[in-house]
């Protein structure tokens, strides 16, 4: 399965990229970076550090540093390097975002899945620039963002959609089906310290990286009332590989952009006849709502075990 990852690396993005690279069932055609919880320069550098430490040869492109319409970045300005490495960093490719995506999509011999793990600024730009190419080559978009029944940046909104709600609305308003892995499912994917010990018996570089990221998450981050680590961005990767362990609801998805209280809120319309004409009745996106936690934990281990065999 060929994928393009867009990310704002971040510990959970790093875990997602690590698992995607570890799996022989996914071919990562390229990675683009975006503003997000951290500013673009930091998300790009973190991605470089990760790829260097994993000794992965993947084309990297630095994308957007401000949201599409709002022109104001809302993340954490005190970002630090995700990890230290003694290996040499590879610079991003010498292409701007749109040229990078054009090259990757036009050159793809089979359908591509986009895996956005950041605010959707970059993906919206690609859709605005090359709608025909995206329709032709992008089979689906499997993303981390949003949430039907909860927010985490505000009560209504999750960070990726809060940071660039117009971009998110562009993506959900386009013609490519989206699988939304939002807070509804992520909040059920808590990896406790106890449950995570099973990953520490592996020695391959991907397992080592996941161990580092989990320890880091356990040590400095308390997820409110959650008793463990949530690696949000791993959910789309696990969905790509093992969709059977997830359940969701199909419907139209829209993003609020006009309300002080609800900007970035994810609205799922599951019915054909909602009173509101704003919803396009024929769009079939999917919001993932739940997962089998035990199988999620098992499948992560399966990816690491297979990588160990091949190492």
């Amino acid at each position, binding site marked *: 399965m060929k994928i393009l990852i867009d990310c704002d690396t971040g510990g959970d993005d790093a875990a997602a990229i690590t698992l995607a690279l570890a799996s022989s069932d996914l071919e990562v055609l390229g990675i683009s970076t975006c503003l997000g919880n951290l500013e673009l320069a930091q998300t790009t550098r973190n991605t470089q550090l990760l790829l260097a430490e994993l000794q992965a040869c993947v084309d990297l492109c630095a994308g957007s540093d401000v949201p599409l319409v709002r022109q104001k970045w809302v993340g954490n300005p005190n970002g630090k390097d995700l990890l230290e490495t003694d290996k040499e960093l590879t610079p991003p490719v010498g292409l701007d975002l749109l040229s990078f995506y054009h090259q990757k999509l036009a050159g793809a011999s089979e359908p591509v899945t986009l895996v956005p793990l950041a605010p959707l600024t970059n993906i919206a730009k690609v859709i605005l620039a090359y709608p025909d190419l995206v329709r032709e080559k992008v089979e689906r978009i499997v993303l981390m963002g949003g949430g*039907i*029944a*909860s*927010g*985490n*940046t*505000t*009560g*209504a909104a999750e*960070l990726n959609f809060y940071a660039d709600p117009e971009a998110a609305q562009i993506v959900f308003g386009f013609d490519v089906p989206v699988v939304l892995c939002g807070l*509804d499912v992520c909040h059920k994917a808590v990896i406790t310290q106890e449950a995570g010990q099973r990953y520490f018996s592996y020695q391959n570089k991907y397992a080592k990286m996941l161990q580092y990221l989990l320890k880091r998450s356990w040590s400095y981050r308390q*997820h*409110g*009332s*959650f008793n463990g680590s949530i690696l949000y961005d791993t959910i789309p990767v696990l969905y790509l590989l093992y969709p059977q362990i997830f359940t969701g*609801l199909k*419907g*139209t998805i*829209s*993003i*609020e*952009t*006009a*309300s*002080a*209280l*609800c900007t970035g*809120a994810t*609205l*799922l*319309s*599951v019915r054909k006849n*909602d*009173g*509101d004409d*704003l*919803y396009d009745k024929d769009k079939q996106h999917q919001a993932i709502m739940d997962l089998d936690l035990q199988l999620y934990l098992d499948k992560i281990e399966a990816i690491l075990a297979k990588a160990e065999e091949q190492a």
Partner: protein
Amino acid sequence: MSDIKKRPVILDCDPGEDDAVCMFMMLASQQFELLGITPVCGNKTLLYCEKNALRLLELTGHTEIPVYKGADRSMARGVRTAGNVHGNTGLGPVVLPEPKIQTQDTYAWEFIYEMAKKYPHELEILAVGPLTNLGKAFLLFPELPKLIKQVVIMGGAAGLGNWTAAAEFNIWADPEAAKIVFNAKVPMVMMALEICFMAYVSPDDLKAIRGDGTGIIANVTADLLTRRVDFGLARGAKGGILCDAVAATYMIDPSLIEVEEVEVDVDTQGELTVGKTVIARDYTELYKIKPNTKNGIGINREAFIDLLIKSVKTLDEKLSH
């Protein structure tokens, strides 16, 4: 029982099929002194809701309970009703005679304020329709909120709405009033759509509610529920729902319902989210939440059904004496 002080309560409602069952449960319980009923425009226009409240009091033999003059439209968005969701009259297939008793010539919001002054820090309000009457009361009488013990509502949704993708009907019908109520610094209890769907009534439950078919209230309740159970089953659910009865259950026995402490606000601006109850929990990053609401997240469904059946039987026994 008579030496135990009863809890003073006002029922604010828009009957409404599930409002009727909610009212039955409140009338059957010995815990409450039901001071009055304040109907509001909601499931149907005010005229229907008012008449249905009067009819249901006559049916249950509780003509001593006064009904007050409620709001005939939302605060800022005109008349908003649920169309024919509750049938032509608001009581589905149940046909009751024209009421003989009449509505009092006092506004609901004035009555609420008077009762709060009479029972300071004791008065509880069970509100299962749009929050217009209560919103007006809080707006007009600023000292009112601190006199009220708690407001228990049926309304809102954490996720999927039932009227728009974002909004549950009661909140959508008057989002400005709901926003005033949630921001009034009154202890709020919210039974939103999620918990109402957990409290479904199965076909077997429906049979148990009807019992031997001789009880007047049992038959009316079963008749009100039959269409809802069929509707639920046709959509792949395990039964039908009667949201307002869940709020009554919290009033009668809160131990049957699990709650989380959250901060709730109501959207009045969005293109898509007007009427959405925004639930902020302790993991919200942009601000520290100030919990203002107990939100129902789990219910002992079997005990809820038992309570419903017991309530109906109690009313029928009283009627047969």
